[in-house]
C-alpha cells in the first residue's frame, strides 16, 4: 500500500504544466475563443499544438509491443489534471488517454493491414484519431438527443473510432464521416455532430471484444475527465483567491472577509476530498471508484465555479474575465459519459444491491 505518485509521474505533469504556463494562459485562450472561423482558430492554437507534439506523449497508453509507451491511466491522470487546469483546447487527453489505446485494442483484436497502418500513422505521423463511445440504449445515459453523437475537435481529426452499439467498434476515415458544426457553451470546444455514413469501415471489431474495448475506453474517459475537472476546479479556486486579494471594497481586500474566506475554504475541502478518489479510480479503474470520481470531481468543480463567479461579483458575470473559460469547460465535461446523474445513479444502484462495502470490510 503506497498512495503516492512516483518521481516520473510528477515530472511528466510538471513538464506539461510548464508548457501550458507558457502557451495556455487566459490571453491565449481568449485569442482562440475570438477566432471567427476554423482556420483562424487553428492559427491561434498553432504554436501550442506544435509544442504539445514535441512532448513525446504520443502513444502514451498504447502497449509497448504495439509501438506505444505502455503507460497506464495512473501515469496519465496528473497530465489530465494539468490539461484541465489550463482549460487546454487541444484534445490531448481524448486522444492519448482514450482514442489511441482504443485504436490499439481494435488493431490487437482485428489485425489487418489498414488498421495497423492507421495505428502507425497516428503514433508516428501527425494523424489525429478521436473516438465517441456509443450511447447504450438501456443505460441511464443522457445523450444530446436520441441517435446523435457529439464530439469536440472532430473537425481536426483524420480518423474516428465509432460504433452504433457497444457490440461494434469501427475505424473510419474522416472523409467517410459527415460532420455538422454545433456551438458549445464553451467557445474553445469545437463541437461537431457526427453522422455515420453507409461506408464500410477501415477495420471492424464486433461482439464482446468490442464491448470490452468500449467499456475500458469509457472508464478511462470518465476518470480522465474527472481529473480535468479537478484541475479546472483548482484553477478556478486560484483565480478567485487572486481576485479576492486584488479587489478592494470598504478600504480592504474583499478576501479579508470571513464570508469570502469560508466560501473558498469550502471549495478547497471539496477539491481535496475529490482528489484521492480520482487518483484511486485511475489506479484501480474499478467501476465504483470511477463513478465516485466522476461525481466527486463534477461536484467540486461546480462548487468552485459557483464560488469563483460569486467572488468576482458583477465581473464574474461578464465576458471580460477569463474565469469563464474554466467554468464553461467544467460545465461541459461534467455532462459527458452519462454525466454526474448517471454516475450517481449507478452508485446508488450498487448501494441498493449491497455492493458498496468499505474496501476493507
Amino acid at each position, binding site marked *: *500500500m*503506497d*498512495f*503516492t*505518485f*512516483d518521481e516520473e*509521474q510528477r515530472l511528466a505533469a510538471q513538464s506539461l504544466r510548464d508548457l501550458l504556463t507558457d502557451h495556455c494562459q487566459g490571453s491565449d485562450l481568449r485569442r482562440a475563443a475570438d477566432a471567427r472561423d476554423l482556420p483562424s482558430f487553428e492559427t491561434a492554437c498553432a504554436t501550442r499544438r506544435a509544442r504539445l507534439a514535441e512532448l513525446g506523449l504520443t502513444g502514451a497508453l498504447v502497449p509497448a509491443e504495439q509501438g506505444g509507451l505502455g503507460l497506464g491511466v*495512473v*501515469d496519465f491522470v496528473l497530465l489530465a489534471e494539468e490539461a484541465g487546469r489550463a482549460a487546454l483546447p487541444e484534445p490531448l487527453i481524448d486522444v492519448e488517454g482514450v482514442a489511441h489505446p482504443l485504436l490499439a485494442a481494435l488493431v490487437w483484436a482485428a489485425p489487418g493491414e489498414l488498421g495497423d497502418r492507421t495505428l502507425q500513422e497516428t503514433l508516428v505521423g501527425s494523424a489525429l484519431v478521436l473516438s465517441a463511445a456509443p450511447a447504450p440504449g438501456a443505460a441511464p445515459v443522457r445523450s444530446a438527443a436520441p441517435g446523435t453523437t457529439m464530439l469536440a475537435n472532430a473537425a481536426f481529426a483524420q480518423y474516428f473510432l465509432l460504433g452504433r452499439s457497444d457490440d461494434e467498434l469501427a475505424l473510419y476515415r474522416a472523409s467517410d464521416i459527415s460532420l455538422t458544426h454545433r456551438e458549445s457553451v464553451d467557445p474553445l470546444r469545437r463541437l461537431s455532430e457526427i453522422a455515420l455514413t453507409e461506408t464500410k469501415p477501415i477495420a471492424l471489431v464486433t461482439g464482446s471484444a468490442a464491448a470490452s474495448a468500449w467499456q475500458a475506453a469509457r472508464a478511462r474517459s470518465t476518470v480522465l475527465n474527472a481529473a480535468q475537472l479537478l484541475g479546472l476546479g483548482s484553477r478556478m*479556486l486560484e483565480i478567485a*483567491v487572486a481576485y*479576492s*486579494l486584488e479587489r478592494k471594497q470598504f478600504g*480592504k*481586500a474583499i*478576501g*479579508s*472577509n*470571513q464570508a*469570502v*474566506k*469560508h466560501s*473558498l*475554504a*469550502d471549495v*478547497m*475541502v471539496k477539491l*481535496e*476530498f*475529490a*482528489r*484521492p*478518489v480520482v*487518483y*484511486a479510480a*485511475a*489506479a*484501480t479503474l474499478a467501476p465504483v471508484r470511477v463513478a*465516485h470520481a466522476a*461525481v*466527486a470531481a463534477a461536484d467540486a468543480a461546480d462548487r468552485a465555479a459557483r464560488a469563483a463567479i460569486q467572488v468576482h461579483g458583477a465581473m464574474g458575470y461578464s465576458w471580460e474575465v477569463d474565469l469563464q473559460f474554466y467554468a464553461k469547460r467544467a460545465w461541459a465535461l461534467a455532462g459527458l459519459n452519462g454525466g454526474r446523474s448517471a454516475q*450517481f445513479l449507478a*452508485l*446508488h444502484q450498487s*448501494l*441498493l444491491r*449491497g455492493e*458498496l*462495502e*468499505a*474496501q*476493507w*470490510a
Partner: protein
Amino acid sequence: MAIDLQYTPRQHALRAEARAWLEANVPREALPSYDTAEGFEAHRRWESKLHSGRWSMVTWPQEYGGRGLDLIEWLIFEEEYYRVDAPGRVNQNGVFLFGPTLMEYGTSEQKSRFLPRLASGADIWAQVWSEPQAGSDLAALRTTAIRDGDDYVINGHKIWSTRAVYADWGFGLFRTDGASERHRGLSYVVVPLRTPGVTVRGIPQLDGESGFAEIFFENARVPVANRIGDEGQGWSIAMATAGFERGLMLRSPARFQRTAQRLIELYRREAQQAAPIDPGVAATVTQCWMDAEAYALSTYMTASRLIAGGSIGAEASLNKIFWSELDLSMHRAALAILGARAELRGLGGGEGSALAKAADEATRWMDGFLFSLAGPIYAGANEIQRNIIAERVLGMPKG
C-alpha cells in the same frame, strides 16, 4: 514506487492477527457509556485488556508497550477495531494526544513515570485547555501556574474538559508568567485531578451524561517536574498536539466507514418496507458512502506521504471539517429514515418486544447524532478551521 493500493502480505497478516484477537476479546454486549462512573471503569478495564494484547497503542514504539506500527498499519488496525464495534477509547486523549507529545517533549524520567500507566489504562487522561473566556481564542487563557520553590501554584478555571469527570490526570496549558500575554509565557503542565485545590464539576451534555467537566484550581500545587518541555514553550507544544488531534489520529476513517455501513444497512432494510423513503434521503445515503470512502482514501494518501517523509499541514483543518460534517450528515439521514421511531429512548439489551428493539436502535442513532453535533465544535470549531485554510493555505489576509 508508483501508486499501489494493494495491501502487502505483512499488512494482511497484521489485519488477520488484529481480527482474531478482537473477535475473541471484544465484549459481546456494548459497555455502558464511559460518561457514567460504572461505564468509565468498564472502559478502563477494556483499555487494560487491549494493553494485555499489546493493542492499546499500536503506533507507540515497542519500548513503551506499543507495536511501532506505521500509519497505514494503524489504519488497518482501526478498520478491524470498528468492524467489530469495539468499545470507544476512554483514554483517546491520552493515547493520541498526550502520549505522542510526551514522547517528543518529555524527559526520560517523565516518560517512564507516565507512559506505562497510560498504556495500561491505570491512568486515564483528560485535556485541560479551554477556559470560559478562551475557547476558539485559546491564547486568551488566564489560568496561572506560578512558581513557588519546587512547585507550581495553580489558580483559575478550565472548562469543556472531555472525560475529566472520572479521569485521573489532565494535561494542560497554564500561564507560568503571570505578566505575559497571548501565546507567550505559557507552559505545558500535567495535573492530577484528585489533588487538594482541584475541584472537578461535571457538565451534563445534550445526552444527559457528564462527558465533560469544568475544573476549578484554588492554590493547587504540582511539582515543577510535572512541566513538559521548557517554561514558556507551552504554546508550541500545544500546537503540536493540536496537529495530531485534528490531523489524522483523532478520528480514523474506519469509524465513519462503519457508520456509513450501518446507515446503508438501515436504508436497505427500510427501503423494502411499504412506506417509501424520500429520494433526498436516499441520495444523502449514497453521498455519505462516497464521503466516508473519500475520507479513507484521503487518509491513506496522507499516511503514505507522511511515511515517505512528508509532514502534516493544511490537511489537518480540511480533515476536521470533512469528517465532522460527514458524521452529522450520516446521523441526520438515519434519523430521517427512522421517522417516528427516532425519538424513542431504549433501555439497552434490545430484548423483548419489537418496540424495545426499535428503541435501542433509535437510541444508538440519536446518541450518535447528538455527539456528531459536537464534531464541528470541538478540536477547533469548523469556522476556525476555515479561517486557517483561507489564511495559511490559500494566502488570504487576516480579517
